[in-house]
């Protein structure tokens, strides 16, 4: 099988992703060259993918796909089916294994994209050698771009410096080094701490010794000074030693004190004399007035004042009580004027009180009864029994009865009267008619009718008359009562009169009641008068008995008992009060007399006279008190002044002391008393003496203090006894040593602080952590670098392996193919250098060219050659087809021809070539090229994919024939009208289910000349120009402003066409075909052919298909499957529930879509109508198609 051609003969694409609206089948593919042409969307790319996936199912694995093919290989007929990921192979009808094919990653080697060859990496004229050489090498390596892959994984030929990381690492390392150095230095410093502490101890010891030596030096100095001063002091007079230098002042002060003492003594004596005078002036006995006696007199006087105030208060109270007694007596009434009334009242006891109380109670009762009786009499007035009482009773009764008798109304007799009248009328009529009636009619009936009517009328009259008679009798009866009759005998008037009479009757009944009460009341009046008389008599008796009694007269208010008892109680209370006050006054008078007598007796002890009352006694006692105080003070002052220890004696003594002091002063300094001159002389020299003495004293203290600072014991003795000069030298030496103490101490403290801080710190740890992180990052970078370098080495090794092991064969093949493709014009030379540099030699001239100097076509041929050389080198099994899915339009003409020529050679060499294009001119080029190879050329087939896919439907409708396989140059219009030109061109009808791009340009271009020009350039379908870049399209349509207008118009018509086709499809659903039916899963293989045929019969109309299935057009097809199918169609769009648009609605839809274009003038209504006219199956507005 190796080297044998594998060629597709038939390709059935049922389903493949990207394939819309059903599958299609390609028949009779050529084992040589098959040119598949069709507009975009017709399935070219799908065909390419189908071929690829059939050979390498891994491509597109997992996709929903179903593809079948028939192919030839090694003289056998193979079939292959790919259903999803399941592939099945048959050889000559029997199941077989898949033939050995190249690996899937070589699949792309067989799918040549000429676009790629023409444009990628410099195959075009401006390419550079390096890029193209790389591309050649890539092709030779199976299409793998090793440099790109190497670049992608970051491979490197030489290591680079990760500067940032290095700097960070260095900085971190430097930081660690720095900190370590600092800490090392600190440690070295810290190691000196012991020595420093020793030096410090030495300095401290020197400082301590220095103090002692300094003190000794100072002691010696003081001692010298002291001795000098002492010598000078000894030269002063000895008296000065006893002086203090203030003796003169002291003498003056002593003499002033003598004078002061004399003056003081004199004043005291004067004071004593004055005291004696005041003593005498008090006029009291020698002992004065004892305070106890004065106190007694004062207490008595106070009591006397109190008694006098009580007398005045009792007297006032007595007056008030007498006044109240008088008023109470007056309230007792006529007895008040009796002279002895007070006596008699005072004599009243409880027994005497009882008749008074009883009399008052009875009088009160009597008065209450009299009051009630008077009220009754006032209410009864002069009531008498009325005379018209009975008549009123009769009148009321009559009127009530009259009202109780109902008033007769004629309408109450209406039915009876009417009935009577009817009967009479009937009877009358019967009688009238009877004369004319046949004799067989019965005779009594009319008479009975008349009789009944008369009876009804009679009863009515009698009943009313009887009622009226009863009322009249009652009127007469009322008149007999003699009362005022009602003004009218109507019910209203009678009721009013009845009300009046009933009110009057009620009054009369009350009068009768009062009249019956008057008799008993008179009797009661008389009884009360009797009781009043008896009571008055009783009162007289009581008055006569006890002299007082309550007044029973009605005029006395309030009630006699309360008033009398109250007056009697008040009198009694007042009377008792009077008695009590009078007794109190008597007692107070007695005490007053006693007190006055006692006070008088007291005053007489101090020679004072009698007093009348408290005020006078108080005044006398005040005066006595003042004199007693004066006497006491004078006595006390004299005692202070003149006593043995008195002030006068003391002053006398002080005076003598001061006088002695003056003498003593002179004697103290060794002078005779009064030697003031001697004293002055001494005092003149005393300051010098004193200063010298103080100096000696100070120096002595200083020396002693300094001596204290010296150590004790032999050391101190040694210091005292040593030569002072030697001491000074020692002091200077010690000062120098001790002077470093602070410095040493500071340094030690500083070091200890630094050590402590360092021991507590984490600076080095942190720096080490940073260094570790930087270290790790840099190591990672180093690993990356190592990875990159090894990757580079590996890629280079791969390149060299390929170059050494595989490329020679590929290049050999390439050279052969290239020579063949270029018809021997060129020869590829062995590449030189690394990377390899390719060159080609022009065989005719021997001129060697770099690849960049070759023409575009030649370069494409070289690329094709190397691609094919690789493919052929790799192919261990059959030769697989090449599929070229690209367009050569607008590309270099020479390059296109070179490609075609080369591919014809490939096919001729035994490899199937499938060429997919949308360009008619390419087809023409192919055909032209193939004609030149008729002798040795491969078999070629040209297939119109549009026809394959939509041909059946298009064929049903009248269409203009077109010969796609052998395109002739389009005929020129030559004056033909537009329609005639269409017929000449064979313009197909519009297939509305096809994309707008498949529509012939004739429908859109109404300028025959322009259309011809477009057709001549290979543009036939709208899709070919629809997506062209604006500038290119304008250039295609002509030159100048007209071209732009044509472009806008063409685009506008295209948009209109698209809108019309979309509108046309509404309500029609997607056409159902075999693929759809298979995909639905509702149609089994058993029925698929029949149902597919039926679908084709109904033009793929899902609705009609379902209806036909329901009608049983396919025998045995189950109804539930039909339902399932219907549901699937609905879901998949096969059944479009929207209503189909009629012609007018579609027209309107188109206008809406191109409103903007119409407004701009690019399109007019005629354009829309012209396109609309070409659409089939459009119902009119009235429902007629």
């Amino acid at each position: 099988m190796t080297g044998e051609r594998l060629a597709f003969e038939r390709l059935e694409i049922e389903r493949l992703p990207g394939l819309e609206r059903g599958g299609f089948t390609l028949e009779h593919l050529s084992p040589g060259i098959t040119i598949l042409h069709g507009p975009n969307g017709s399935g070219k790319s799908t065909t390419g993918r189908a071929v690829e996936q059939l050979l390498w199912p891994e491509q597109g694995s997992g996709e929903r796909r179903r593809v079948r093919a028939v192919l030839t290989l090694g003289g056998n007929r193979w079939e292959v089916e790919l259903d999803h990921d399941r592939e099945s192979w048959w050889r000559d009808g029997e199941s077989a294994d898949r033939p050995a094919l190249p690996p899937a990653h070589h699949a792309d080697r067989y799918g040549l994209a000429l676009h790629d060859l023409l444009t990628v990496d410099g195959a075009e004229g401006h390419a550079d050698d390096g890029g193209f050489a790389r591309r050649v090498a890539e092709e030779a390596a199976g299409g793998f771009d090793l440099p790109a892959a190497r670049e992608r994984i970051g491979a490197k030929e030489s290591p680079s410096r990760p500067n940032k990381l290095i700097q960070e690492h260095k900085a971190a390392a430097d930081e660690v080094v720095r900190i370590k150095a600092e800490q090392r230095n600190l440690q070295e410093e810290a190691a000196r701490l012991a020595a420093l502490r020793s030096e410090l101890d030495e300095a401290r010891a020197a400082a301590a010794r220095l103090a002692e030596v300094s003190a000794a030096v100072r002691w010696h100095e003081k001692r010298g000074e002291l001795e000098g001063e002492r010598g000078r002091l000894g030269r002063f007079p000895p008296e000065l030693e006893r002086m203090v230098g203030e003796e003169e002042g002291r003498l003056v002060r002593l003499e002033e004190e003598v004078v002061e003492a004399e003056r003081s003594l004199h004043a005291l004596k004067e004071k004593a004399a004055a005291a004696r005078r005041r003593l005498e002036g008090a006029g009291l006995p020698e002992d004065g007035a004892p305070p106890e006696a004065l106190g007694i007199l004062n207490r008595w006087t106070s009591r006397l004042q109190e008694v006098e105030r009580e007398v005045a208060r009792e007297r006032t109270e007595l007056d008030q009580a007498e006044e109240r007694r008088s008023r109470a007596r007056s309230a007792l009434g006529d007895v008040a004027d009796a002279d002895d009334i007070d006596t008699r009242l005072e004599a009243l006891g409880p027994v005497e009180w009882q008749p008074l109380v009883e009399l008052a109670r009875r009088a009160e009762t009597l008065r209450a009864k009299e009051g009630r009786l008077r009220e009754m009499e006032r209410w009864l007035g002069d009531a008498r029994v009325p005379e018209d009482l009975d008549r009123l009773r009769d009148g009321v009764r009559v009127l009530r009865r009259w009202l109780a008798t109902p008033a007769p109304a004629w309408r109450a007799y209406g039915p009876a009267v009417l009935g009577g009248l009817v009967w009479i009328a009937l009877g009358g009529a019967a009688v009238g008619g009877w004369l004319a009636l046949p004799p067989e009619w019965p005779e009594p009936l009319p008479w009975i009718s008349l009789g009944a009517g008369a009876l009804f009328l009679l009863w009515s009259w009698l009943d009313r008359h009887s009622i009226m008679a009863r009322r009249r009798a009652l009127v007469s009866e009322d008149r007999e009562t003699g009362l005022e009759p009602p003004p009218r005998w109507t019910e209203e008037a009678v009721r009013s009169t009845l009300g009046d009479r009933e009110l009057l009757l009620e009054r009369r009944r009350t009068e009768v009641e009062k009249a019956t009460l008057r008799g008993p009341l008179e009797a009661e009046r008389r009884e009360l008068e009797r009781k009043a008389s008896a009571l008055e008599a009783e009162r007289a008796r009581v008055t006569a008995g006890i002299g007082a009694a309550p007044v029973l007269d009605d005029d006395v208010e309030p009630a006699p008992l309360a008033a009398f008892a109250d007056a009697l109680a008040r009198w009694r209370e007042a009377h008792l009060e009077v008695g009590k006050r009078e007794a109190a006054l008597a007692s107070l008078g007695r005490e007053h007399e006693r007190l006055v007598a006692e006070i008088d007796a007291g005053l007489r002890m101090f020679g004072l006279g009698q007093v009348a009352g408290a005020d006078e006694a108080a005044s006398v006692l005040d005066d006595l008190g003042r004199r007693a105080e004066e006497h006491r003070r004078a006595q006390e002052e004299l005692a202070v002044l003149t006593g043995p220890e008195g002030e006068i004696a003391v002053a006398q003594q002080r005076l003598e002391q001061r006088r002695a002091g003056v003498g003593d002063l002179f004697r103290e300094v060794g002078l005779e008393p009064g030697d003031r001159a001697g004293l002055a002389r001494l005092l003149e020299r005393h300051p010098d003496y004193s200063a010298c003495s103080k100096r000696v004293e100070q120096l002595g203290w200083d020396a002693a203090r300094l001596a204290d600072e010296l150590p004790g014991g032999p050391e101190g003795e040694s210091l005292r006894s040593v030569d002072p000069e030697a001491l000074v030298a020692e002091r200077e030496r010690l000062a120098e040593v001790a002077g470093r103490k602070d410095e040493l101490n500071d340094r030690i403290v500083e070091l200890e602080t630094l050590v402590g801080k360092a021991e507590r710190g984490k600076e080095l740890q942190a720096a080490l952590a940073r260094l570790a992180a930087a270290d790790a990052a840099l190591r990672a970078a180093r690993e990356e670098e190592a990875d990159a370098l090894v990757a580079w080495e590996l890629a280079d090794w791969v390149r060299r392996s390929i170059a050494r092991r595989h490329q020679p064969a590929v290049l050999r093949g390439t050279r052969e193919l290239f020579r063949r493709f270029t018809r021997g014009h060129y020869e590829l030379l062995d590449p030189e250098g690394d990377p390899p540099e390719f060159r080609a030699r022009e065989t005719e001239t021997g001129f060697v060219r770099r690849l960049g100097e070759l023409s575009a076509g030649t370069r494409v041929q070289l690329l094709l050659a190397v691609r094919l050389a690789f493919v052929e080198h790799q192919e261990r099994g059959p030769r697989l087809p090449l599929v070229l899915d690209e367009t050569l339009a607008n590309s270099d003409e020479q390059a296109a021809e070179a490609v075609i020529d080369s591919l014809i050679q490939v096919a001729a060499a035994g490899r199937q070539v499938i060429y997919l294009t949308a360009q008619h001119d390419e087809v023409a080029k192919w055909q032209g090229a193939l004609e030149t190879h008729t002798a040795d050329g491969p078999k070629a087939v040209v297939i119109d994919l549009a026809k394959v896919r939509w041909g059946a439907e298009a064929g049903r409708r009248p269409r203009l024939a077109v010969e796609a396989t052998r395109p002739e140059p389009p005929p020129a219009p030559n004056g033909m009208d537009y329609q005639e030109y269409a017929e000449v061109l064979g313009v197909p009808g519009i297939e509305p289910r096809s994309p707008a791009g498949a529509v012939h340009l004739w429908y859109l271009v109404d300028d025959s000349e322009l259309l011809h020009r477009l057709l001549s350039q290979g543009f036939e379908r709208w899709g070919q120009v629809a997506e062209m870049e604006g500038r290119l399209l304008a250039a295609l349509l002509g030159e100048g402003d007209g071209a732009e207008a044509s472009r806008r118009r063409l685009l506008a018509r295209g948009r209109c066409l698209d809108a019309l086709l979309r509108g046309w499809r509404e309500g029609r659903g997607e056409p159902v075909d075999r693929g759809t039916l298979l995909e639905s899963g509702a149609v089994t293989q058993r029925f698929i052919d029949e149902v597919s045929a039926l679908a084709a019969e109904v033009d793929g109309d899902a609705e009609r298909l379902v209806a036909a299935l329901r009608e049983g057009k396919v025998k045995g097809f189950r109804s539930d499957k039909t339902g399932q199918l219907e549901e699937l169609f609905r879901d998949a769009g096969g059944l479009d529930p929207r209503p189909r648009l009629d012609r007018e609605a579609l027209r309107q839809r188109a206008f809406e879509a191109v409103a903007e274009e119409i407004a701009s003038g690019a399109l007019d209504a005629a354009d829309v109508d012209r396109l609309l006219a070409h659409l089939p199956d459009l119902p009119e507005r009235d429902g007629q198609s």
Partner: protein
Amino acid sequence: MSRALILCLGDLHLGLPPSRLPSDADPRRVSTASVWLRAVDAAIDQGAALVLLSGDVVDRENRYFEAFGPLEEGLGRLAEAGIPVCAVTGNHDAEVLDRLRRVVAGGRLRLLGAGGRWERFTLEDGAGRALLHVDGWSFPVRDVRQDPTASYDLPRPDDDAPVLGLLHGELDRPGSTNAPLTKASLERPAVDAWLLGHIHKPQLIGLAGGRWALYPGSPQPLDPTETGVHGAWSVEVEGVALGAPLQIPLQTVRYERIEVDLTGRETVDEARGAIALQMRDAVAALDLPGDPEWLVLQAELTGRTGVHGELAGLARRLEGEETLELAVGGGRARLTEVRVRTRPAVDLAERAGTDDPVGVLADLLLALEGDGTDGARTVPKELVRAAQDRERAAYDHPAFSTLASGTGREEWAAEEPEERNRRRLARAAASLLDALLETKEDRSDRVKGAGQTGADRS
């Protein structure tokens, strides 16, 4: 019968911060000093009779001051509690600890074996009876190439108290400059058990006669290789017997590695989601005694994934990313390092054998995955040599010479150079293969895009 509890610590490395921590970790709480002070608290709380330090108390990198503050503080607290402390020096603090002994006044620290001479300390009970003899030996200099036990010359005490050897050294690594030890040398009859220092990972090694040697490990792990539980150890002395050492977790930082299988993940987002999910599961499965404040994770991405080529970038972005943080007990878990060990989602066997770069690389990868001599698939020697040269060029590049002055810590997951280069080569091959396929896909997309300009799709 008298009983006493001994608290054993080793390799404190005071002054050295743990590495690869999240940037927002509080240095005070994650420092070795903080864990040392926790150990001190534990000794006081548990009424320890003696604290033993088996060397490397102070890290040489920070041997001047910063280690001494916390050490002195801890020793002071132990002294106040009446707990004596015995220590030997290790390679890190050979020249340091003696200074500390002089600095710390009042005999708070008993340094044994100064000058490389064995010395004995006897722990006595209140009655003056010996409870435990500690025979210690200190590094006299930084490098010691002889087995210190060879010079052990102390007589067996004439009482019944057990003898514990206190020593810093490296077990079963002949030629080590850190006092090489052998199990045989530790099994001398005079010593009942050994407390060793130098190895940071805690290890309890059984010796003949039911005796043991204990590497207590660093109480705070110092780098990502020091995974697992770290802390102090307690040993009970009861009469003449030494009890089995028990670990007391004290660490505030715990390092762990997790493996994240990204097989089948086709997008970066999916990969990221898988990492977050598997990280959560891995953390949930961990036993975390002592409730460390930080659980620092290193993830190794494995499996065959279509997003293999983009994982290096994702790994860089994820390292230290706070959004992936998890709450664990009272602490937090954060991913600080992500290593990509995935393979591209390509069937190498299918790709191998074709005469194109992908086929060549697939062949190479299959050879690298095998032992390199897998029949027809052999890793070309010239490629290995060239790759090693390239790697060496990177390592020797002056740009990285500054690393020599770095912390000098061991690389995480240090590998033999050949193995490392082999892995690097495999990584590069996988990435290049991915990139080749991607560039081809990109080109195909570009061509299709260009070819379909202006065209309807069929």
